[in-house]
């Protein structure tokens, strides 16, 4: 592809936060019609760089050129005026306002009124151009995550964006939604838009992008000119600075059932209820639960973790019947849990990390006696775990919310594994984590499996489940529709079962 003049060019961007060099002399350019992949591990400086481009941070040095013209971007309003649109990882939408209202925010009206007719016409036009259709009068809260993301993209186009930045757009999407996103992005690029695509998922980057820039420790570690013909492991090596070997799952010798569910059903809660779910996990075995998100996985995780009482059915942990379904009871029987949402049900973001790390066991004699906390013991425990799991943070008294996703996940893992659980239930263990952190988590699971722990992994990433699990059960509309040995399982077969097309047991 011959190189047209760059749409946007960043030269020598440097941004320091105190002693942290978030960006150091970074160069980056995007041509019209080009999809640029921006790769890097968490903390490599991708988000900082994009925040500089979008006007949230002022760079310490460097310049930004748009179509050869030097520009100063000091606010998101400047960025929008310069034709830069950004789709953040956490959507910037008001859930109770309608689609159209979210689009029209900040746009001057006609004779003092909101220009509804003009907005509808523009929305319809964007829908026609790129196949991005939305019902203008639905409240955003009624949209699926995929639709909300579509709205964010439409919002950028609505404002006349010529460069679109997407920060890990596929992390929140189901596999079927990713295809739709990609075809929309290709259509936009074909019409001359520039796109910066930030992702951890190398197979997606290879499928979608024309060129890649790889960041490591705030610097450009390398560029990839032909991503489609570059292997994932070559890219991973650029990102990490060393080769990444996928973990090898050796043979294991499963023992007796350590967790059983028999005829579990739930009702009266938001989300899909469970309908007559039975499953068993043996010691030294990893069982995957696959399924499109929203098919009862959340209810299943809640029942097993003891935060939801089922209407019917029985559960046993290590041979003991669970009677009350309280978190404390299942924990006492030997269950460890890593919840889906680290920030809300995982730990308390406004408290010191050490407090969150002992929270589930705060009443045990290890951390309190006679109703009083043992601050020294809590601190020592947290310090030991921080060291053992290489959790990057200033110390145990750091506010938990200040840690990156990968470090939070390590902290949660450390908290549960320190007490040698007999069963571990984890949801989306590596969502949003980079390759290195994901690799670390996987190794820990395999080590626990070797020690005889039974592990249930609820996930949407089929490749991950196939690497990690001994058996994979598929959930559809609150039921387990089949269980496969991972030796017999393929992505195609699992994908078919996930749509409810094939039952197998």
């Amino acid at each position, binding site marked *: 592809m011959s190189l047209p003049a760059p749409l946007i060019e960043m030269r020598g961007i440097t941004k320091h936060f105190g002693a942290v060099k978030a960006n150091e002399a970074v160069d980056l350019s995007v041509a019209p019609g080009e999809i640029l992949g921006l790769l890097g591990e968490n903390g490599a400086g991708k988000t900082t760089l994009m925040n500089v481009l979008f006007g*949230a941070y002022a760079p310490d040095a460097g310049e930004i050129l748009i179509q050869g013209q030097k520009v100063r971007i000091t606010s998101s309003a400047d960025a929008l005026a310069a034709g830069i649109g950004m789709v953040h990882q956490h959507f*910037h939408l*008001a*859930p109770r*306002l309608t689609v159209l209202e979210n689009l029209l*925010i900040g746009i*001057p*009206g006609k004779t*003092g009124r*909101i220009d509804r007719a003009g907005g509808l016409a523009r929305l319809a036009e964007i829908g026609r151009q790129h196949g991005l259709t939305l019902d203008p009068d639905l409240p955003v809260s009624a949209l699926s995550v995929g639709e909300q993301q579509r709205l964010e993209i439409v919002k950028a186009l609505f404002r006349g964006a010529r460069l679109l930045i997407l920060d890990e757009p596929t992390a929140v999407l189901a596999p079927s939604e990713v295809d739709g996103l990609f075809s929309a992005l290709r259509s936009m690029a074909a019409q001359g838009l520039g796109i910066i695509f930030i992702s951890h998922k190398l197979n997606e980057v290879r499928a979608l992008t024309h060129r890649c820039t790889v960041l490591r420790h705030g610097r450009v570690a390398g560029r990839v000119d032909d991503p489609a013909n570059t292997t994932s492991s070559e890219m991973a090596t650029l990102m990490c600075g060393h080769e990444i070997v996928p973990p090898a799952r050796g043979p294991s010798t499963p023992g007796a059932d350590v967790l059983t569910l028999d005829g579990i059903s739930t009702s009266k809660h938001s989300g899909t209820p469970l309908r007559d779910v039975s499953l068993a996990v043996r010691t030294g075995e990893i069982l995957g639960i696959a399924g499109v998100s929203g098919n009862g996985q959340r209810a299943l995780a809640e029942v097993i973790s003891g935060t939801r009482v089922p209407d019917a059915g029985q559960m046993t942990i290590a041979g003991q019947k669970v009677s009350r379904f309280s978190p404390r009871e299942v924990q006492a029987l030997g269950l460890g849990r890593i919840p889906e949402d680290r920030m809300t049900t995982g730990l308390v973001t406004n408290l010191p990390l050490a407090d969150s790390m002992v929270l589930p066991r705060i009443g045990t004699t290890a951390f309190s006696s006679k109703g009083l906390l043992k601050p020294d013991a809590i601190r020592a425990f947290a310090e030991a775990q921080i060291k053992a799991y290489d959790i990057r943070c200033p110390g145990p008294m750091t506010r938990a919310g200040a840690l990156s996703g990968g470090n939070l996940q390590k902290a949660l893992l450390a908290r549960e594994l320190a007490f040698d659980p007999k069963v571990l239930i984890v949801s989306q263990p590596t969502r949003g984590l980079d390759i290195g952190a994901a690799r670390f988590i996987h190794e820990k699971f395999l080590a626990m499996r070797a020690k005889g722990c039974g592990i249930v992994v609820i996930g949407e990433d089929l490749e991950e489940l196939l690497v990690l699990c001994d058996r994979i059960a598929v959930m559809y509309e609150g039921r387990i529709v089949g269980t496969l040995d991972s030796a017999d399982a393929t992505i195609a077969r699992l994908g078919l079962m996930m749509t409810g097309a094939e039952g197998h047991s």
Partner: protein
Amino acid sequence: MSAVFEQIFQVGFLAAIIRIATPLAFATLGEMFSERAGVLNLGIEGTMLLSAMTGFTAASLSGSLWLGVLAAVLTGMLMGALHALFTVVLGLSQHVCGIGVTLFSSGLAYFLYRLIFGQQSVPPNIKGFQTLPIPVLSDIPVLGPAVFNQFALVYMAILAIPLAAFVLYRTPWGLSVRMVGENPRAADSAGVSVIATRFQAVVLGGALMGLAGAFLSMAQFNAFTFGVVSGRGWVAIALVVFGRWDPWRSAGAALLFAFVDALQLRMQASGLGHIPYEAFLMLPFIFTIVAMAVMSRNAVAPSALLKPFRREER
């Protein structure tokens, strides 16, 4: 029982409801604008009191009631700006600052009043607003004398309701107000100034609270006393919740409260003499609590209410 019914459908009773509802409607709309933008204004009670004082004083000294109204509105805007300075610009606790504004402005009102009027055995009063019958409309039976033979400020309150709904739902500024109250980050990334929008909404709310104060001291009581507001500001805060942060529903809530208040006034007067009058005084408040408990269980406040906005920096 039939005697009570007869009283209810008297024209005078309907007119009383409208009159009682007027300051509540102003105050409720004012608080609603503030809260829709994400700022709880507990300064409302004191803002109303100080506005009632400045309005009364300006009218008394100048002889012009409309000059008094202007003074009250400006006072309300000033107190709104003070609250906004603390909570929006500096991002301090909305609870603490609101209570501070109420204590400060109440104290200031008493102090200035004493300074200007001294201690008098008979409190000074003014010739307040007179009813202003609207031609033709006031001749409609029942409704005419009740609604269209009122003070000018009452008509303003009636017009303020659709106007508030129009501004909030149909103008770009109103959309910005709702957006900064729901997700300020979204508004910011769309190029809307969160700080400016919130500041403006709180000042507009203050102006409406000022009108409420003006009505109390210049149309309802025609004098300034220390009990002239007596909790109406706090009631307005409850009515905003009851009205689910919507102009029409909030005005409806004000009307409903006024109905119960007017009813208890009649019951006090209607010779149920063996019951202490304080018991009747409680009725509107008990009603508010019960109505809130029943009707507002799933009311959802603006998501960013109470949350100060700061640009993210590490």
